[in-house]
């Protein structure tokens, strides 16, 4: 590890720690159990909540009998629609239709819209008492026929209209198909899936008079604050949301669900802090899922393999109490060059819980279908699948015709293919064997938008030489604490140990949802600018101070390094941060960058950063910004056993500048594993009669375990994308999930000659 920079000659110290394999700064806290998660805050007088859920998918609650439960020792309160306070609508201008999560307010009426709907909460002295009481509550329903069959729902149920945005088309699709030398038309289906992070969702709510503090396992403290305030009719300043550590979210903690509101009203009711932790079982009905999709893809290509038509029709679902749906076609319109395009989404309302983004919403399900279909077309055209993709490479964004901010997809294909040994592939299905095992090699393209959201940050340089930097962002286990510490340390030229990064608190400068793989790209420029701004204040103080060696120099002449401000041309003329502060008798100097601030205005410091860094906020209207990548996968299948073993994965990714090799790689591994899970095993089943979720534990909901995952090789083609932000980093996470399922499926075809178009590919589907 690089420690303190001593060479004052090195003017590129932004590279000193950024990009390196720095260990997680919060690693020790986590392995020693000191990291405090939302259900672990030890508040005095805490009471415990337990959610009561519907056991039907549709109907009316006719009666709730809580008398037996109320008599139990320790029970403090039971809230149901019969006695819950009125809540205010969550809808707002910002979150009209399409807001992922539920608009749904709990306990406001007796209607049941899906299985496991939260219909009450018990509060008791202990968790066990609350749970026992909940089990003794008798509920009578007037059950109605639930709508949960997707096909039937599309014919008979209400629809959700997502608007024109999800239905783009251009060119002449029929004409394109007529021109084609080869065409395919196939339907690909994906099941209902659940995020299943290790930490189940939890909220601890505590009131102080009319002020509410909520410890919530959320990927979005600001959003949660807004929703709670709106629901309870409080000004936002009266609500504080804290989320210091999140044990994985994958989307299910990104938006708003009912449990934080329930915890808040329960805490007010019993006048004590209330801890509400969902059980693993409840995670299958309380905070969203990836909805089922049926995707019909029609493709045509000419004799040279150039695509002449792409049609991607998605049928999917949302609930009766929310609007999120899976936009599978979104990536189709940007991934390949094609003159004729037709994207459609039909969304039916079903009596399931509200879907929510999960590990690449739309991108993951969509790339699965598109990349599997493309493989089928390449085979039919007799062209190598990688070559086929290169032939159809989109040099500009196909819909907007904007140039890409930075796109190196072809290099990704080539480097991953070389590392994998793709040139040795015999294209004939079933042709590659080892012993009894059939071997299959498949590949697919990965892509994910480069998002950057408005973010503020604050930096404080303390008189004791330490630095505290903060932003209301989150660390879902992804490494935010670490990379932001690295960036701050580099900006000020300090060792990691002198910098502390704080996050996950709505009192901190505003940040947006940690979703859409946006955090690194959004927060790092704000952190850097805030550090520069704080340092600049010190420089100004020194210049104005006739006791300072820097007195009367111009700001442009001064730079910083290793905790000192000094004259660029004569580094010996200068002083430490502490010296300035101590002389002024100040405990600290601080600066806050608001989301509106356009980049770094502190040229004196910025000037020493790498040449070529664009000093604006990026994310422009001029460029289309996406990450890209290529997955290559090997599978082995014993044809009698039919169990697919993924034996090798190589991926190359074009994700901009890498801020920390270790955390970046871990993100790719995690994303890849999700994709393997999606391809081979993940599925939540609904009972065909009641429409209820019948799988709700991790023994039956299969996610990959060690034995399913091979050694993975990850290559980063590192091209900083300065159009997105001055650090050149795009986010890393969902990019690795997009496409990998198709690469697995394509490898299975290559091994067996079988095209399975219904995920997951469990052994029965290969018979």
């Amino acid at each position, binding site marked *: 590890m690089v420690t303190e920079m001593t060479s004052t000659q090195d003017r590129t110290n932004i590279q000193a720690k950024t990009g390196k394999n720095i260990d997680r700064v919060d690693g020790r806290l986590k392995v020693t159990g000191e990291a405090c998660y939302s259900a672990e805050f030890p508040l005095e007088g805490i009471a415990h909540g337990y959610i009561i859920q519907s056991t039907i998918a549709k109907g009316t609650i006719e009666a709730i009998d809580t008398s037996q439960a109320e008599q139990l020792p320790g029970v403090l309160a039971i809230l149901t629609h019969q006695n819950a306070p009125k809540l205010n609508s969550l809808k707002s201008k910002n979150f009209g239709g399409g807001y992922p999560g539920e608009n749904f307010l709990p306990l406001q009426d007796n209607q049941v819209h899906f299985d496991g709907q939260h219909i009450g909460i018990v509060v008791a002295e202990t968790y066990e008492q609350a749970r026992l009481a909940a089990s003794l509550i008798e509920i009578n329903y007037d059950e109605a026929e639930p709508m949960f069959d997707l096909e039937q729902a599309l014919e008979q149920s209400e629809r959700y209209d997502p608007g024109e945005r999800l239905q783009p088309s251009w060119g002449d699709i029929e004409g394109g198909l007529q021109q084609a030398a080869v065409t395919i038309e196939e339907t690909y289906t994906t099941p209902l899936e659940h995020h299943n992070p290790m930490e189940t969702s939890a909220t601890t709510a505590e009131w102080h008079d009319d002020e509410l503090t909520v410890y919530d396992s959320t990927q979005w403290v600001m959003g949660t604050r807004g929703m709670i305030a709106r629901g309870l009719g409080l000004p936002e300043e009266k609500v504080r949301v804290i989320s210091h550590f999140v044990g994985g979210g994958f989307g299910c903690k990104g938006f708003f669900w009912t449990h934080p509101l329930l915890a808040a009203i329960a805490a007010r009711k019993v006048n004590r802090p209330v801890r509400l932790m969902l059980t693993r079982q409840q995670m299958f009905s309380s905070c969203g899922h990836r909805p089922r999709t049926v995707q019909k893809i029609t493709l045509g290509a000419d004799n040279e393999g150039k695509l002449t038509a792409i049609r991607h029709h998605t049928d999917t679902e949302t609930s009766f109490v929310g609007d999120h749906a899976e936009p599978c076609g979104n990536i189709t319109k940007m991934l390949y060059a094609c003159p004729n395009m037709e994207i459609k989404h039909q969304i039916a309302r079903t009596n399931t819980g509200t879907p929510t983004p999960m590990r690449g919403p739309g991108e993951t399900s969509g790339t699965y279908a598109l990349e599997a279909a493309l493989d089928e077309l390449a085979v039919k055209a007799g062209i190598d699948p990688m070559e086929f993709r290169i032939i159809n490479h989109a040099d500009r964004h196909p819909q907007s015709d904007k140039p890409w901010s930075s796109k190196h997809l072809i290099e990704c294909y080539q480097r991953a293919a070389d590392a994998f040994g793709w040139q040795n592939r015999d294209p004939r299905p079933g042709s590659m064997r080892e012993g009894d095992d059939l071997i299959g090699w498949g590949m697919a393209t990965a892509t994910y938008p480069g998002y950057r959201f408005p973010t503020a940050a604050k930096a404080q340089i303390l008189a004791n030489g330490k630095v505290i930097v903060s932003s209301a962002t989150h660390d879902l286990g992804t490494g935010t604490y670490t990379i932001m510490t690295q960036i701050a340390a580099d900006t000020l030229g300090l060792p990691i140990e002198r910098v502390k990064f704080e996050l996950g608190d709505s009192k901190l400068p505003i940040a947006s949802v940690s979703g859409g793989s946006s955090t690194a790209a959004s927060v790092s420029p704000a952190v850097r600018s805030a550090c520069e701004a704080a340092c600049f204040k010190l420089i100004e103080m020194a210049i104005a101070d006739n006791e300072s060696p820097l007195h009367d120099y111009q700001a442009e002449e001064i730079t910083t390094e290793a905790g000192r401000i000094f004259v660029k041309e004569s580094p010996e003329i200068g002083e430490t941060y502490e010296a300035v502060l101590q002389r002024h008798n100040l405990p600290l100097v601080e600066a806050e960058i608001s989301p509106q601030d356009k980049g770094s205005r502190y040229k004196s410091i910025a000037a020493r950063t790498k040449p070529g860094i664009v000093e604006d906020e990026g994310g422009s209207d001029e460029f289309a910004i996406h990450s890209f990548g290529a997955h290559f996968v090997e599978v082995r299948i014993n*044809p009698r056993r*039919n*169990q697919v073993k993924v034996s090798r994965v190589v991926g190359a990714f074009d994700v901009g500048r890498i801020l920390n090799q270790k955390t970046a790689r871990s993100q790719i591994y995690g994303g890849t594993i999700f994709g393997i899970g999606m391809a081979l095993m993940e599925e939540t089943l609904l009972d065909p*009669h009641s429409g209820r979720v*019948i799988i*709700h534990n991790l*023994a039956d909901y299969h996610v990959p375990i060690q*034995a399913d995952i091979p050694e993975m090789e990850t290559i980063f083609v590192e091209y900083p994308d300065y159009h997105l932000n001055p650090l050149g980093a795009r986010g890393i996470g969902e990019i690795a999930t997009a496409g990998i399922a198709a690469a697995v499926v394509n490898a299975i075809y290559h091994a067996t000659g079988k095209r399975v178009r219904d995920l997951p590919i469990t052994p*029965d589907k290969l*018979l």
Partner: protein
Amino acid sequence: MKHFTYERASDRTDAITQVAANPQAKFIAGGTNFMDMWKEGVETPERLIDIRKFPGEITVTDGTLRLDATTTNSQVAYHSQVRDRYPVLSEAILAGASPQLRNMATTGGNLMQRNRCSYFHDVSYPCNKRVPNSGCPAIEGINRMHAIFGTSDRCIAAHPSDMCVALAALGAVVQTRKPDGETRNIAFKDFHLLPGDTPHIETALEHGELIEAVEIPPLPWAKRSHYLKVRDRHSYAYALVSAAVALEIEGDKIVNARVAMGGVGTKPWRSPEAENALIGAKNNEESFIAAASAALEGAKPYQYNVFKIELAQSTLVQALLTVNSEQ
């Protein structure tokens, strides 16, 4: 949670006496199966008598291998006598659960583990096994994991154990002691019961009857044996189908055979049909295919588990090919 009392029994007699005294009392060993169901409200014991600390030894007398009921699954799987003489048993155990679970789980508990039917595990559904005569939603519900042999119109849940499939193939004997002091030797095939009209009665044990040990007769040719399991992921998943096989081969003839299957029966499913088809036949793929079709004759699939017939056949063939190629 519901209140309960817990005690660590001092010895077997104490354990049996204590459980026999209370109809709502239960033995608990590793707790790996029991605790899951307890948390889900499927089991609601008033009293738990812990037997896990009883000595768990593996001994050999006159070639018979004896596993105390409280030997752990890991201990048995890695025991040299088991690995050398009954590879099928070691492999079956190691194909089940996870290392952590196998370190806790015991032989007795493995025999007594209850099924994985989703409706059984969710108390908001009716289930004849949990509440006699309440109904069986699995018959017309999601029954992908369910049995195709030994079902009744009351229950179709598959027996989940891997270890028991090997024990069925090896013709093990379960030694028990009843509350009145009588000891019994129960043949493995008689230990687990078919659901019939009483799916809630799963084994031949009386209330309070303790499994003391499992004995495996000497079967020298079981050296050539194998367990093959097909599942939805590579570890830590119950069997879709599995096969436990042992072959004795002389020249090009099979002179002795054992075949049992997992994931297909409402109890560990020994297949005399397959064994008969193999004995006297040539040790080649053709015989194995014939045996596999004999094994699956009479299977009765449900809506979502039709695949088990073909998958069980091909798994059985693969298992037989594997033992055949050994030596």
